[in-house]
Structures are given as C-alpha cells and as structure tokens.
C-alpha cells in the first residue's frame, strides 16, 4: 500500500496527472519544512530551558550511574523473560482448557480468560502487590502473566481452530486419538502460523513491564527516575527521558519488526498457507458478539 500509492490509483485517489503531481510536490515541500520547523522549535526549546548544560549530562559519565541504568534494564528484561515464559505456559493450559471435550473445564477456562482480559493489567498488579503483600517482581510477573496468558490462550485457540478442517478430519479418519491429532497434526501447523501473533503479544508484555515502575520495582524507568530527581545534577529530567526512551522504544520496535519479519516469511511458506491467524485480540467479552481483532495496549 505505502509504496504503491505513488504510482497506482487507490480507492481514494486517482493516478496523479502532471498538475496534481506538481501540487503534491509543493504540499510535500511545505509539510517537510513545517515539520523541520517544529523539530527546530523543539530543539530551541530544549536549549532555551537549559537542557543541554553540562551539569545535566555529567551523571551519565559516572560508572555508578551507568551501572544503575544497566541494572534497571536488566531487571526490565528479567521481568519480561519470566512473564513471557510463564504466560506462554499459562496460555497453553488455558487454551487446552478451552478446547477441552468436557464442558465444565471449558466453562472454567472461558471464565478465567474473559475475566483476566477484561481487567486492566494494573489493577491485577496492584491487587497482588497490595492485597497479597508480595515483592514487586512477583507482583508484576503475576499480573503480566495472567493478562498476557489469557490473551495468548485466545491466540492459541483461534490458531488451532483456523487449521483447515480436512486436516483433523483426516487425522481422526486415520484412527488417531484427540491428543495425537492435537500434537501431531494441529499444533505443529498452528504454531507456525501463530508465531507473528505470539511475538506481537510479547511486545505488549515488554511494554507493560514498565508498569513495574508504579509498584516501585527497580526497573529501567525507576533507575531513570532516581537519576532525574538528583539535585546535584540540577534535576536532569529531560536528559534522562532523552536517554531512556530511545532504548525502551528501540527494544519494542526490534521485537515488533521481528514479528513482521516472521509474518512476511510465513506468507511465502506453503506449510502455513492453510492457516491464517488474526493478531492478538484485545478488548473484552462482547455480549452476544465475536470479540473483534485488532492491536492492543
């Protein structure tokens, strides 16, 4: 879409003629200048409010502070790794529950999945942290696991259901039992197709580890806050944001790009052609309707 628009007509625009082309060129130049102007103004504001003074940037030269930041980053990644593994496990269990042949099991799994998806993650994290009085890391991991596990359960379930019907019919016809059909036929095909959706959900988990800041878990933002509130360096808040956000956003972008890369590779793979899995479903149980697909927080 993005590349094609310039040379091709879309539902909205016809192929531009020479005059329109010139007009578009003018728009492009003007808007680029405008953006550059805004960026320049922002930079000017930064200078004007003395954000680039030496005192505000010296803290980043100290080994202790670099270590503090690295430790924060390490804690962020640790929380992410633990909750990613645990939510994959929980997601598998819940998905198995939702696909079960026994009605009570199905009901319980559905209830759990829908409840945890409808609750704000932060409410769960605070509940575990305040009511159960645990350490910040377990509280954060529990909250993230419950939420992402439930969303992943839905991804797994829709992935399994998206495998062509003939596949499991054929497997049953060969005399396989349900477990065999699952492990030998459905899961291998579904996992390949689901991989992009799973990775994009992991991006959500990575982003949400920053919620640990709110329950005083010593993660990346927390380290930044410690530096930013240091009077010796003239409260270097903006420098801290300028250092932290590219790293944080960069990590999430890398993971997102990995998801798109995998998705693009999958598209060419004949093994996954039979299956097409929607991205992780956000939102909550819609009364009387199928939950919609789309990106999430």
């Amino acid at each position, binding site marked *: 879409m993005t590349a094609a628009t310039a040379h091709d*007509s879309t539902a*909205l625009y016809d192929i531009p003629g020479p005059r329109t082309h010139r007009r*578009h060129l003018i728009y492009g130049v003007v808007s680029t200048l405008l953006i550059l102007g805004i960026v320049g103004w922002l930079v000017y504001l930064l200078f004007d409010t003395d954000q680039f003074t030496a005192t505000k940037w010296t803290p980043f030269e100290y080994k202790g502070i670099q270590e503090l930041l690295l430790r924060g980053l390490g804690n962020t990644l640790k929380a992410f790794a633990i909750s990613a593994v645990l939510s994959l496990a929980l997601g598998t269990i819940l998905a198995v529950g939702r696909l079960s042949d026994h009605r009570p099991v199905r009901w319980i799994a559905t209830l759990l999945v829908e409840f945890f998806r*409808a609750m704000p993650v932060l*409410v769960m994290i605070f509940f575990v942290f305040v009511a159960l009085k645990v350490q910040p890391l377990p509280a954060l991991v529990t909250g993230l696991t419950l939420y992402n596990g439930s969303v992943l359960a839905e991804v797994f379930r829709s992935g399994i259901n998206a495998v062509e019907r003939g596949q499991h019919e054929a497997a049953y016809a060969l005399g396989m039992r349900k477990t065999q059909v699952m492990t030998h036929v459905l899961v291998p095909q579904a996992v390949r197709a689901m991989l992009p959706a799973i990775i994009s959900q992991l991006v959500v988990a990575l982003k949400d580890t920053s919620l640990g800041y*709110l329950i005083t878990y010593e993660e990346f*933002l927390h380290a930044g806050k410690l530096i930013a509130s240091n009077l010796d360096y003239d409260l270097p808040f903006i420098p801290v944001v300028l250092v932290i956000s590219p790293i944080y*956003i960069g990590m999430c972008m890398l993971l997102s790009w990995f998801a798109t890369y995998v998705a693009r590779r999958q598209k060419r793979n004949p093994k996954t052609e039979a299956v097409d899995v929607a991205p992780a479903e956000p*939102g*909550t149980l819609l009364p009387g309707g199928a939950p919609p697909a789309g990106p999430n927080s």
Partner: protein
Amino acid sequence: MNVLTDNFSTYGEGFLGTVELTVYASLLALALGFLMASFRVAPVGSFRAIGTAWVTVLRNTPLTLLFFAVLLGLPRFGLVLPFKVFAVLALGCYTSAFICEALRSGINTVPKGQGEAARSLGMNFGQTLSNVVLPQAFRSVIPPVGSNLIALAKNSAIAGAFSVTELLGTYKTLNELGYSIIWTFVWIALGYLIITLAISAIFNILEKRWGVAR
C-alpha cells in the same frame, strides 16, 4: 461488603473520573487517529512518512514511559496544566496510533474499483470520500475501534497511579481508612467491568446496525 456503601462518594468520584478520562481521551484519540490515518493514505509522500512515524513510535512506546515523559516532562518547558489534561493527552496520543491503524486497514478493505467507479461517474474527491469510501470503511472499522477504546479505558488505570482522580486510585484512600483490601479491589474491578462492558455494548449496537453482514 460495607466498603462500597460506606464510601460510595469516593467510589463514585473515582468512577466518574475514569469515565471522564475515557471519554475525553477517546475523543482526542479518534480525532488524532482520523488525521493520522488520512495522512497514511495520502498521495503525498511526506504526509505518509509523518503518519508512519507517528504510528510506529507511539505503538512501541510503553504507556508508562509516555505518562512519565508527559506528566513530569512537559512542566519543565513551562507548560503547566492540570494532571488530568496531561493524562488525557498521553492516553489520547497513545491510543490514536492504534485507532489510526484500525481506520487505515478499514479504508484498505474498500476495493479499488469502488473509488474508480465513483470517479468515472464524475464524482469529485469529497463526494467519493463521503458517499462511497467512508461509508464502506466505517462498517468494517467498528469492531477494532471498539476494542481499542476498551483498551483505552483499561489503560486509564495508569493515570490513577500518577495521582489523577480515577477508579484504581481510590484503593489508596480506602486502604488508609483501614477497609478490607480484597473487597476494595472487588468493587474497583466491578467498576472497570461496568465501563468496559458498556463500551462493548455500545459498539455491539453500532455493529448490529451498520456492521458488515458476514
């Protein structure tokens, strides 16, 4: 159980705070999302670049970081507004990136032939947009926009942790008053359920009335 009846006004205040935050941030997100979506499908390259950059950056920004930067950072530039306005800004901008993607994919579902047919009938750009493309895009866009607004309502809990009056924030007051923490959270959870279910009910009605028959 008496946590709710004793503190009805505290809960009510928090609940209304969340609703207020959700409504204002939704309006901002829808407006910005629409603007950015129109940038992303524009025939001018630099508009598309702006839209793409907006979406890519905001979608990969942790919301807590955004709150952190907006609530504590903007005052350093001499921009001092009430925390509530900052919270609406952060939530609205963040969600606008997701709304933009939903709208864009909605516009992309409209087949090219529809626009070509409209143009060959002599319709100008405004007519094509308002009579042909947008009505069709609107139908397929209802469910994803709805789920994004639900996500927004859930994300508004983060504002509470940054001392904006909001439902989750009520736990602090009640905790200090010595009420049972478990029950406090049960009522908070119920409040969020009411809000999210209300949004999904609204979008269900919209979907029933205008959605694509599948």
